[in-house]
C-alpha cells in the first residue's frame, strides 16, 4: 500500500473514531457477527479507538467454530479408513472433535490420508486421479462457501463420479442471529452483519430480522475503515431510536445478492434445523442435500449416524467456555483455560483454532500489559 493511501486511511479511521466518540451519548453493546471482523478489530486494535461505553461482543461467525463436534468425529472416523481420502479447508484440520486433542492433523499423523483444499472443486481432480479410493469432502462454512460445495456436487453429478461424497456441515447465519436475540438475557443491541454472506444472500433476510426483532443491523466489510464506519452508523441508528437495516458495504453487497449462487444453493440444498457447536440447535440453521443429490451424502454412503440429534455437551473435565464465547456471553480472557491450558497449539475449544475464532484473535493480538 502506498504511503499516501495509508495516510488517507489513517486519517479516515481517526475521523470516524472522533465522530463515534461525539455520537455515543450512553453505553451500547454491539455484536460483530463475523469472525473476520473480530480479527480485524483485534488485529488493528480498533477496540482501543472506541469510546469507553461502547462494548463489542464477538459473534458466532466462525464456520469452523460452530461445526458440530460429532460431524468432526465422523470425519475423524472416515479419515483413518484406508480407502478414504478426507479433504477439507486448512483451518478445519486442527479443530478438535468431541474429545480434546483429537483432530484431523492427528488423524493424518496416525496414517490417515487427510488433504487440504483451497477450493472444493479440487476434490473432483482427486476423485478422478484415484478412482479406487473414496474422496470425502468435509464441507463447512456459511453461505459464502456453501455455493462452492453446491457447484462441486453439480459437477460431480454431471461427471457421474461415484467415489466422491460430502460430509455436510454448512450453516446459515441469519437464523443464528435471530436465535441469539431470542436467548433470555440477550445483551446485543445492534449487529454488524457479515459482508461476504450479504454478497451471496443479499439483504432481504436481514431486513426480516430487523422488522421482527426491532434491532438495527449494519452490513459491512473487514477493512478497518469499513468496521469503524459501520460502528458509527450503528451507533447513529441506536441513538436515533431507528432500528433499520443499513448497508455500509455497498461496493460489494447488493440488495438481491448473487443470483447464480442462490440458484446453486436451491438446486442442491434444502434448509433444515441444525445444531451449532456452542449454540445448540438452530431452527433453519443449516442445509441438507435434496433428494437428487443424496447419493453424495457421506453419512449415507458410509452408514454413519446423522448429527440431527442434540449435540453432546462439552466434556465435563474441560474448563473450556467456548459455548458462552460463541453466544457472546463471555469474552475469551474470561475463560480459566485461556492462554494457559488452551492455546492455538493445544486448543480445547474451536474458537482457539480458527483464524476466525475469537479466542485465537485475543491470543494472537493480545493487548500489551501496561
Amino acid at each position, binding site marked *: 500500500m502506498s504511503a499516501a493511501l495509508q495516510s488517507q486511511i489513517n486519517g479516515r479511521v481517526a475521523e470516524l473514531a472522533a465522530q463515534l466518540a461525539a455520537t455515543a451519548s450512553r453505553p451500547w453493546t454491539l455484536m460483530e457477527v463475523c469472525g473476520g471482523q473480530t480479527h480485524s478489530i483485534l488485529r*488493528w486494535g480498533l477496540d482501543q479507538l472506541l469510546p469507553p461505553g461502547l462494548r463489542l461482543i464477538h459473534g458466532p461467525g466462525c464456520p469452523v467454530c460452530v461445526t458440530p463436534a460429532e460431524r468432526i468425529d465422523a470425519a475423524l472416523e472416515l479419515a483413518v479408513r484406508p480407502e478414504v481420502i478426507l479433504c477439507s479447508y486448512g483451518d478445519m484440520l486442527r479443530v478438535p472433535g468431541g474429545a480434546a486433542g483429537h483432530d484431523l492433523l492427528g488423524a493424518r499423523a496416525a496414517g490417515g490420508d487427510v488433504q487440504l483444499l483451497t477450493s472444493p472443486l479440487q476434490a473432483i481432480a482427486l476423485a478422478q486421479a484415484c478412482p479406487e479410493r473414496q474422496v470425502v469432502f468435509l464441507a463447512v462454512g456459511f453461505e459464502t462457501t456453501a455455493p462452492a460445495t453446491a457447484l462441486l456436487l453439480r459437477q460431480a453429478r454431471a461427471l457421474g463420479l461415484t467415489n466422491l461424497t460430502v460430509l455436510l456441515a454448512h450453516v446459515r447465519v441469519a437464523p443464528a442471529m435471530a436465535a441469539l436475540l431470542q436467548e433470555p438475557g440477550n445483551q446485543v443491541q445492534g449487529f454488524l452483519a457479515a459482508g461476504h454472506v450479504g454478497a451471496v444472500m443479499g439483504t432481504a433476510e436481514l431486513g426480516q430480522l430487523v422488522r421482527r426483532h426491532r434491532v438495527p443491523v449494519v452490513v459491512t466489510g473487514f477493512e478497518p475503515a469499513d468496521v469503524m464506519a459501520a460502528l458509527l452508523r450503528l451507533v447513529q441508528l441506536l441513538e436515533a431510536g431507528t432500528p433499520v437495516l443499513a448497508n455500509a458495504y455497498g461496493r460489494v453487497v447488493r440488495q438481491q445478492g448473487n443470483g447464480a449462487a442462490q440458484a446453486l444453493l436451491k438446486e442442491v440444498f434444502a434448509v433444515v434445523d441444525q445444531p451449532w457447536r456452542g449454540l445448540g440447535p438452530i431452527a433453519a440453521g443449516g442445509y441438507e442435500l435434496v433428494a437428487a443429490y443424496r447419493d453424495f451424502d457421506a453419512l449415507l454412503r458410509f452408514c454413519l449416524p446423522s448429527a440431527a440429534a442434540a449435540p453432546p455437551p462439552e466434556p465435563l473435565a474441560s474448563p473450556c467456555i467456548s459455548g458462552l464465547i460463541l453466544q457472546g456471553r463471555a469474552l475469551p480472557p474470561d475463560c480459566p483455560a485461556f492462554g494457559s491450558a488452551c492455546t492455538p497449539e493445544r486448543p480445547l475449544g474451536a474458537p482457539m483454532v480458527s*483464524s476466525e475464532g475469537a479466542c485465537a484473535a485475543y491470543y494472537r493480538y493480545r493487548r500489551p500489559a501496561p
Partner: protein
Amino acid sequence: MSDCIQLAHGGGGTLMQQLINQELRALYADPAQVLHDAARLELPPGPLAFSTDGYVVQPLEFPGGDIGSLAVIGTANDLAMAGARPLHLSVALLLEEGLPLALLRRLVASMAAAARACELTIVTGDTKVVERGKADGIFITTSGIGAVQAPTPIHPTAIRPGDQLLLSGDLGRHGVAILAARHGLALVPPVLSDCAPLWPQVRVRLEAGVRIHCLRDLTRGGLASALQELAEAAAVELAIEEARLPVLEPVARTCELLGFEPLPLANEGRFVVVVPPQARDQAQALLAASGGAWIGSVRPASKGARVLLTTSFGTERQLLPLSGELLPRIC
C-alpha cells in the same frame, strides 16, 4: 544409467561410483575432493564460525529457488549472521528411491551455482539412498565453516536498551512463494522467493565500520519469531512500528487471500540488524539500496522479554511468534 535414483545408487558399488563421478562431481570446485573421505583445509588465522542445518522443503523447486540453493545459501547465511565470511561447506544428500535423475542434476547445478554466489567451496559430502516412501524426494544437510571478520562478538547478548532495529528488505516473500506452489495458487505475476546470500550485505557494513551488536536472519517463523527470539535471548523489550515494515503488494494481497500475516512468514534472504543508537543513520543509509528500513528500537524489559507492535492507527499489540502449522483459512 537409468533415469531415476535406485537403491543401488547408495549401495557402495559401481552405480554409486557412477552417481558420484557423473552427477555429483559438479558440486566440487576441486574434483579431486570426491576421491577421499575427508577434506584437508587451510584456514585463515582468527576465530571461526561453524554451523549446520537440515533442509526439507516441498515442492523441491519453487518460484525463485529450490532445495539445493536453499541448502547452500541457508547455512552460508547462518555463518554470515555471526559476522563470518563463509569458506567451506559439507553436503549430505539423502535421496529417495525414484527421484528423477534430471531433477537431481538440476539441484546439483543449483547448489554449485549457489556456492559460487556465496564465494564458498563444497569440500566434502555424503550420499545415501532410502526406499521409496521413506523420504520426500531429497533431504539435504549442510555444515559450514566461516572466518569471523567482525571485530566484536555479534550475539544477542550484545543487545542493549536504546539499540536500534533495522530490517534488510521486504518481508514474507519466501513463505508466499512456497505456500502458493504448495497450494497450487498460480499467482500472476509469480511471487519469487527472496532466497539470497547475505554475506555481501554484512561485509559492506563491517567494511564501512558500522558497529553491529547483533544480526539475525529471518527464516521459518519470519520476523515475528526472529524478534521474539532476540527479545528473549537479550532479555529486552523490542518495539516496532508496523507502518515501517516493507511488504510488497503481491505478498500483502496473497496473505489477505489465505488469512496469513506477512510477519510470521518465512524469508531466506532477509535479516535484522541491531546497532547502537549512534550507528543508526550509517546502517540505515547502507540498507536503503536493498529496500531495507529502520523498524524500531530496543527498550528495557520492564514487563518481560516481549515484542510490541504499534499499528498504523497508533494502537498497540503484542507480536507473538507463529504457533502451530500455517493453514489457509476457509473464507
